[in-house]
């Protein structure tokens, strides 16, 4: 398996990296861990970049820290670090668990959190939980910096909304308010660690009376991009959560997804699973708050 020839560039600052990216436009690609990029570059059916811009000489993009009411994760932070971070486990154990149940140990030691989002696979496991948590992405370019919500970052299977010259530098997650919990549940017919056939993230906040005050539900792998399920959220919001309500919300989620057939599951099977997994994820998130 040969990779087509390319020019390898190693800028030593973000400014320089953005400039070379902008200069080469669609012919250049950022190299973070490379676990998605190199697999694509080995596949003759994919188009290949002529310039590969490695971030390896850029310092200070690998960290996880609490900063006031935010959790800040550097773009080059490895999935393994997300999985094992005490800070993340304390705030959102389900996010750490999601990272710990992606891919294999070898891939988690190379692949990065921003790479997972930028690759923009419909099944990207970091996407639904980060979207449910209202996480933001900080982005730099020669024009300056901007911040966008993760839930408006995906543009289609394999497509994100980055413009030429832009690099994601940081994922920012609000720390949990009171009576709040996140649950991410992934389903794959082969094994828990395989690419998701369906992934559902539920973020819930209860009011002091125990009713659902706010809820965000995101579905992965069942449309062109991870998608929000607003009708399903509406079933839950304002109500006391129980099995019957969660099942009704699951049913709504089935109507909101637009899955495809592929070698992991048929569209019909995915629709069925969306209902089951959404119900379970709502109940788990609920238990996460009341426990």
């Amino acid at each position, binding site marked *: 398996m040969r990779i087509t*020839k*390319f020019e*390898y560039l190693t800028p030593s600052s973000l400014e320089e990296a953005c400039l070379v990216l902008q200069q080469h436009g669609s012919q250049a690609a950022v190299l973070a861990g490379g*676990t998605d990029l190199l*697999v694509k*570059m*080995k596949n003759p059916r994919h188009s290949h970049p002529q310039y590969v811009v490695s971030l390896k000489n850029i310092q200070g993009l690998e960290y996880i820290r609490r900063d006031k009411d935010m959790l800040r994760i550097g773009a080059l932070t490895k999935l393994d670090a997300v999985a094992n971070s005490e800070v993340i486990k304390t705030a959102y154990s389900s996010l750490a668990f999601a990272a710990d149940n992606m891919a294999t*140990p*070898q891939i988690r030691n*190379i692949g990065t959190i921003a790479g997972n989002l930028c690759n923009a696979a419909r099944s990207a496991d970091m996407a639904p939980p980060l979207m449910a948590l209202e996480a933001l992405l900080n982005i730099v370019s020669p024009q300056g910096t901007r911040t966008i919500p993760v839930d408006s970052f995906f543009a289609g299977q394999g497509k994100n909304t980055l413009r030429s010259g832009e690099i994601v530098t940081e994922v920012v997650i609000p720390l949990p308010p009171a009576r709040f919990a996140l649950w991410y549940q992934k389903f794959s017919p082969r094994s828990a660690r395989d690419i998701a056939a369906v992934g559902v993230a539920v973020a819930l906040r209860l009011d002091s009376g125990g009713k659902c005050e706010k809820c965000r539900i995101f579905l992965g792998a069942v449309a062109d991009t991870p998608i929000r399920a607003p009708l399903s959220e509406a079933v839950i919001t304002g109500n006391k959560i129980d099995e019957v309500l969660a099942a009704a919300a699951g049913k709504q989620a089935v109507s909101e997804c637009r899955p495809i057939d592929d070698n992991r599951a048929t569209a019909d099977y995915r629709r069925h699973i969306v209902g089951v997994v959404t119900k379970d994820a709502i109940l788990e998130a609920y238990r996460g708050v009341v426990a």
Partner: protein
Amino acid sequence: MKKTISLDVNGATYETAAEPQDTLLDVLRGNLRLTGTKKGCETGNCGACTVLFDGNAVDSCLILALEAEGHKIITIEGLADASKLHPLQQAFIKYGAIQCGYCTPGMLLSAKALLDRLPRANEEDIRKGLEGNLCRCTGYKQIVEAVEAVVRGEFK
């Protein structure tokens, strides 16, 4: 265009010329003739190409050789010391954890990375730690038993 790079492998420094598109796996096997690292799927699925990268198990088929400069790499050739096999190697032999042997170098390095982190790993930890290494021969049982034996201190 070829570039001269310097790689730190098994504690020695190697100067070698690599193309940007060469993977670490290509250079270990082709340039350095360290052929204990095996080439399987080349897409991150099988783990035959596993090496330690700053102590962590990685798939060398998904790392460009040029990206490996400045990192400490351990291959299977670097696991035993001069006088004796590593405890994991002894255990794999004793417990029949090797059949055709193709997965063995990667399996051993993943097991080493796991035990360096979790010296008291239980069966579940071991199965999870070896999840990135496929074996078509053994059915995994003997491999897990061999690692458990090392955890118990059966091999020194």
